[in-house]
């Protein structure tokens, strides 16, 4: 069973602070949506609203078209993986996984069968009788996931699922969670502040900022076509230049700008003197060049003090790019330049709100 989730104009105030200022979000059955935002943007609150752990002041939460905002959490059939996993320490792995079924008074034959299935799903078969304390962080997360899925919930909620894992394990578990989610086919909402994690796991990423959803889109669209400057610089590195309808403008023509051009570091190139032509370009002085394995990262400062980041392929001849030397940067892929028009950004914000 997998449900369609619809959140309509949800407002939540905690104390005197308005944490959610009218959030609307729709998720098709079986999709993986990640709420991505800085801490304090309200993403965990929104997750708690879906789970029913947080009361809302105004707005609606619909599961398959049915209002659930007055339904208590235990009647919502949601599966949650908590940030600390919240496994019950005195119960065995099997009893933890069986807990939702025990609460629903299912017969013990069924419980044992489901525990077996779930532990096989998360690759922990044979760990039924272990104590949670004897497991590694990654294994505990799998147990939490198995428990969340045990009672066949309509929606799976993941609260910062990777926060307690080290970096290597994180990348493995992202792929693993995505595999399990696709295998089960369950509608999933995850919360994270890690953009790489959001990009890896999600079908849709919802960028949250100060209690509103700024943009909800596929990871690629968010990166290629951000609706505003916040999204552009939040997701990956972005160089923002003044622009008009025709594309980026020279830096000294900023007065005529009607929008902002977003140029990703990998789309910038260092121009040789004979390549200049009449293309758009940015002159500057090299501040730092660092080799990062798969790329060179070049930081350039323009005459106006603006910092521009450029990512160069690893086979670049970097001998001339010593700090202090003058360079001219150009755009290597003009068709990939995205221009945020002032009115666009305004419209998008209104739509999101």
């Amino acid at each position, binding site marked *: 069973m997998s449900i369609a989730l619809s959140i309509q104009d949800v407002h939540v105030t905690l104390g005197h602070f308005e944490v959610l200022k009218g959030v609307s979000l729709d998720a098709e059955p079986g999709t993986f949506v990640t709420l991505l935002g800085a801490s304090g943007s309200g993403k965990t609150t929104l997750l708690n609203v879906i*789970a*029913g*752990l947080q009361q809302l002041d105004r707005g609606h939460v619909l599961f398959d078209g049915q209002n659930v905002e007055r339904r*208590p*959490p*235990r*009647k*919502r059939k*949601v*599966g*949650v993986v*908590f*940030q*600390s996993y*919240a496994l*019950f*320490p*005195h*119960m065995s792995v099997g009893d933890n996984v069986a*807990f*939702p079924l*025990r*609460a*629903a008074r299912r017969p013990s034959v069924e419980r044992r069968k489901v525990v077996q299935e779930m532990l096989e799903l998360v690759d922990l078969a044979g760990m039924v009788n272990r104590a949670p304390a004897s497991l590694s962080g990654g294994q505990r997360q799998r147990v939490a996931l198995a*428990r969340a899925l045990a*009672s066949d919930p309509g929606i799976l909620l993941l609260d910062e699922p990777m926060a307690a894992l080290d970096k290597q394990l994180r990348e493995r578990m992202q792929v693993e969670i995505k595999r399990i989610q696709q295998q089960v086919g369950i509608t999933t909402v995850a919360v994270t502040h890690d953009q790489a994690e959001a990009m890896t796991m999600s079908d849709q990423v919802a960028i949250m900022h100060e209690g509103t959803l700024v943009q909800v889109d596929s990871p690629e669209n968010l990166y290629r076509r951000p609706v505003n400057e916040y999204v552009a610089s939040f997701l990956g590195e972005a160089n923002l230049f003044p622009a008009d309808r025709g594309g980026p403008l020279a830096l000294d023509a900023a007065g005529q700008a009607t929008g902002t051009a977003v140029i990703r570091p990998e789309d910038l190139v260092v121009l040789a003197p004979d390549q200049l032509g009449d293309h758009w370009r940015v002159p500057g002085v090299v501040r730092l060049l660092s080799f990062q394995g798969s790329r060179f990262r070049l930081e350039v400062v323009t005459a106006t003090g603006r910092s521009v980041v450029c990512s160069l392929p690893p086979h670049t001849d970097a001998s001339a790019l010593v700090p202090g030397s003058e360079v001219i940067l150009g755009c290597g892929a003009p068709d990939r330049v995205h221009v945020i028009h002032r009115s666009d950004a305004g419209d998008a914000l209104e739509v999101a709100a």
Partner: protein
Amino acid sequence: MAVNEAVATPAATRRPRRLADGSVAEKRWLLWPPLIFFLLTVAGPVVALIHQATSGEENAFVEALSSEVFVASVWRTLLLAAVVTAATVLVGTAYALAIAVGPVWVKALLMGGLLISLWTSVMVRTIGWMLLELPSGALFWMLEKLGLRSEPIELYQTTLGMYPAMIAVMLPFAVLPILAAVISFDREQLNAATVFGAGPLLTFGAVVLPTIRQAMISGGVLVFVMSLGFYVTPLLLGGPSNMTMSGIINAQLNTANRADVGAAMSLLLVGGTVAIYLVADRLFKVSERWG
């Protein structure tokens, strides 16, 4: 040290061992002050008691155990300690939970009551209970005002009269360990239980209780062991005909002038208490929690 040597790789053994030996030798003298304190305050009096108990012409232990009054007091003491333990653990758990989840004013009130009762002398509190329990005391006065009772209450200096006061005096010792466990309880587990469909009963029974059970047992053992040797409260409220062990021992020393029998009874009390503690520790691993 032996473990360190066994674990260390051969190449690494030489130098760290000397350092480790030095540091062990350096710290060993730190053990002496507590050892001396222990010898002076515990071992010394026990040796003196043994000496006292064996100083008489007859076997004081046989005499103590064949005294009907003493045997009766042993049962009375055990029953008192058991009931007080059960009552304080039950009330104490509710008390601690109320402090943990109650609104701020409830927290302040209960915490204040707990601390004030801990800071007030046992003597003062016992006399307070005396004033309540006297035949025409505060309790009677209140019931009479309410028109519930016209003849005086016969509670003072009965076996039953010891119970409410003992429970009140011992309550903080049960509440404090349980409160520590309740406060360190992970609230996210409550959310987890709720989200996975558990009602209040299942949540309490399967999630909260197992986490604080150890603390309830430690609090209970503490109260039980303390109740066994408690003197002032049972003596004043139970009266001379309902003495607990400590009251009988005092009577042997001061009234009957049989110091040897009194010493033998004291040793039986201390020995019995230690034995009960060891059994409880074996069963419930109490010292692991305290250590």
